[in-house]
Structures are given as structure tokens and as C-alpha cells.
């Protein structure tokens, strides 16, 4: 029951992030504003990592997936490393990419670099 509540909270915060409008763009890629929802997700700790990874699967909105990668980066849980590598590869392999594909790849780049540093 408690974990379900945690998942609901995560979903609610992710919905907030879906509505975020980027203000800054660089190298053709939108830059994710660090809204308070990001900080709240990070404050929930590594217990939410499995649910975040689950939320990044399937046809999740790309902006949401990019934010999930950003939160996983800040959580710093190395369990997320392999799924992030797969997530990045999935978006890199798309024949036609839009700016949000690049945002996902970019956030995965940063998170992977950070997590790989922890495993060395």
C-alpha cells in the first residue's frame, strides 16, 4: 500500500513535468527546466528507481522520459546504468529523430557518464 502511494506520487510529479515548457534551447535541443517537481522526486530517494525505469518504457512521452533520465542522474543509483544505456540506444536508433529524442539522448549521456564514474 505504501509503495503504491509512492508510485502515485511519482506519477503525479511526472505529470507536472509533462506540462513544463522549456525556456532555453541549445544545439537544437530543448533544455529541461529544473522545476520543483524534479527536486521532490530526487528527495524521494532511490526507492523510486524501479518505478521510474518502468515509467520510461513503452510509449511514454519523450519529455517525461528525458526528465526521468535527469532524475536518475541526480539519484545516482548505479542500478539505473544498464537501463539507461538501453534507453539511449533505443532513441539513437530511431531513423527519424525530433528534438525530444535528442533531449532524451542528452539526458541519458549525462546520467550514464555520472553513473559510470561511480562504478569505476
Amino acid at each position, binding site marked *: 500500500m505504501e509503495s503504491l502511494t509512492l508510485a502515485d506520487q511519482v506519477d503525479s510529479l511526472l505529470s507536472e513535468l509533462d506540462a513544463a*515548457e*522549456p*525556456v*532555453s*534551447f*541549445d*544545439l*537544437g*535541443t530543448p*533544455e529541461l*527546466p*529544473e522545476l520543483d517537481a524534479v527536486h521532490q522526486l530526487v528527495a524521494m530517494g532511490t526507492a523510486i528507481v524501479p518505478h521510474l525505469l518502468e515509467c520510461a518504457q513503452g510509449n511514454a512521452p519523450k519529455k517525461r522520459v528525458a526528465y526521468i533520465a535527469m532524475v536518475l542522474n541526480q539519484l545516482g543509483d548505479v542500478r539505473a546504468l544498464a537501463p539507461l544505456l538501453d534507453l539511449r540506444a533505443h*532513441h539513437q536508433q530511431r531513423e*527519424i*529523430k*525530433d*528534438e525530444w*529524442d*535528442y*533531449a*532524451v*539522448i*542528452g*539526458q*541519458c*549521456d*549525462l546520467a550514464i*557518464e555520472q553513473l559510470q564514474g561511480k562504478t569505476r
Partner: protein
Amino acid sequence: MPTFARTSKTSRQAPSVKTASPARTHFGHSRDVNKIVQLQRTIGNQAVLRLLEANGSGEKERSTNDIARFGQQFSRMAAHTTTPMSVHPGVATGTSGGYGEPATGIEANRGRSAAHDPPPMVHDFGALRLLSIRAPVARGGSHADIPVAGAPEEQIVDQPPAGGATPATPAPAAPAAPAPPASDSCAQARSMNKVTSGAFLGGLTMDSYYPDLAGAGFYGHPGTGGTFDTGDRAGANVQLYGAIASPCLPDQFHLEQTVTRTRFRVNGAVQPDEGQTHDDIAKSGRDATHSPFRQEFLGGGTAPLGYIISMADPPSTGYNATSNIEHDRSFVTSLVGSGGRKSVNWSLSTRIVNGAVTSNVLT
């Protein structure tokens, strides 16, 4: 030593003049003399003397104009090597005058040596020519000798013994070449530059670098550098380009860019990444090692000489009718080689008040 050489030249040039045929009476024409003097400076006294000797003893019917012409052609050769032609494997070097064939490894290396240091290159190239004359090797079908366009080179250079074998008398050892600099010119880019106004170099546009964004309203006036305001984005187009020596391998250089948000306020609120520096390219998710993000072209014209490696950036700030934004970004874009980097700094400062762009400055 210089005195000795000068004396020797004078005493040995005289017979050539005496044996000159009437057709060669214009040998003393100042232009021809100048050409020979120029040739002496380029390939050395001894080589010119041997040319004159060959001309005087066995080739009396030939005009010394041949030698002068050789000098002219030689000069043209040196000029060819200074053009920003690529000497990468498979790319032709030279002209269509007879030796414009794909460079072999040896020739590519010659080009590489010659192109590293432009000012003394003609002299270095002449030294290579001397080696070719004094120490001929088996030729076969190779054209590793002096690639002179026009007159048959038998008329103007010493030929190796029949069969092209190594000469019986070993050639004197070439003087030791000056020690190369600690880092050769392929270890570091020559320069890194930016286009912040006017046409992009290489015939490129922002759409060349970002075909996925073409016509999507991410930037304005895609073919030129400078600021833009699309009505919901204020930003700027910038082309960043580094020059490397033409013979260097482009793959040995990579692009980097960092961004520092020196001021970032939205509706008065300080944004979390104000004051922070990021790896801009990693964050972008773009592949900076390949086209379209990375575009390469030969320099020359308005671009620096050499081989150009470039990228472009259209940073922008999105806004709507109620936005109040202060956004200052400083960028450092670098072309990095094994021996160091060349960087260029640029920045974009944007102010938006109540949905109107009041300032948008690219420097």
C-alpha cells in the same frame, strides 16, 4: 664556405657561356639570369652546376632557356603545394598537368612535411627535390622523381645510371633536418573561429547542420550568422570552425563546447543552473563526430587555408506574451587534437520584458 661556392660557380659557368650556340646568345638576358639565380637559391648551386654541365657537354643544342623554364616550372610546383588541397589518401594532389594522380603514401607524406610550416615550405620542398636528384632510386613506373609538367625532364635533370640502379658512389648524406617542434602541426588545430554575421563558410547553412529542424522555427535566416527573433524565440546563429593542416587526419580532432549560464532569471526567479557550466554537446544528445552536426570542407577563399572542421549552434530563448527573462550565456567552443586545443569564446545575452525582446546581443 659561401665565398668558395660563389667562386666555384663563377669559374664553372664560364665554359657554358663559351660553348653557347648562337641560339643561346640571349643567355645573358637579365630575366634568364634571374631565373637561374632563383633556381640556385631554390635547389642549390651544385644542382644547377650539374644542369649546366650536362647542358654544356652533351646537350649543346639545347638552350639554357630549358633551365630557366625548369626554374619557372619548379616555382609553379612549389606554389601547388601551398594550395589548400587535401592530401588525404585517395585525393588527388597537384594539377592536371601530368602528375595529378592520387597521392601515394610517400607522396602524401611529402605533402604533409611540406604543408606543416608554410613560410619555409618552398625551401623544404626544394630540399626534397635535391634528394631526388642526388640519390635516384629504381624508378619503374613510379613518378617519385621531380614531377615537372611540360618539357621532358631528361633535358633538365641528371638521370640515374642505366636501369635506374642506385649510383655506384653513394650520395653524400643529406644535412640533418632541423629538429621538429615538440608538437607537430597535426597534434593541434591551427585556429578556431566563429561566424557571427554574414554568410556561413563552406556554402553551409544552419539547415545543413540541423536538417531535422529545417523549417521548424528553431532559428531564423539559416544561411547567415547573427541574432534572430522568430516571434516566440530570440536567439542567434553561429558557425564555429577550426582549421587543421590539410594533410592531417580530421578524425584525430574532435569538437567540444561548454556553456556557462552567467545569468538566468525567469520572471525574476533565479534558475537552478545559473552560474553552472555544462558539457553542451553531451547534453544536446547530438553526435558531434559525424555529419550533419560536424561538417568538414577544404579551406581557402574566405575560410582559412587548410582543412576545416565545423559545427553550428542556434541557441535561443523561448518566450510568450507574458515572459520576463534575463538570459546570458557564455560559450567556449574548441577543436581538440592530441597535442592541445584551439578555442573560441562567444556569448549571447537576451532580455525579454513583458513578452517583447528588448535586447539580444551576440558577441
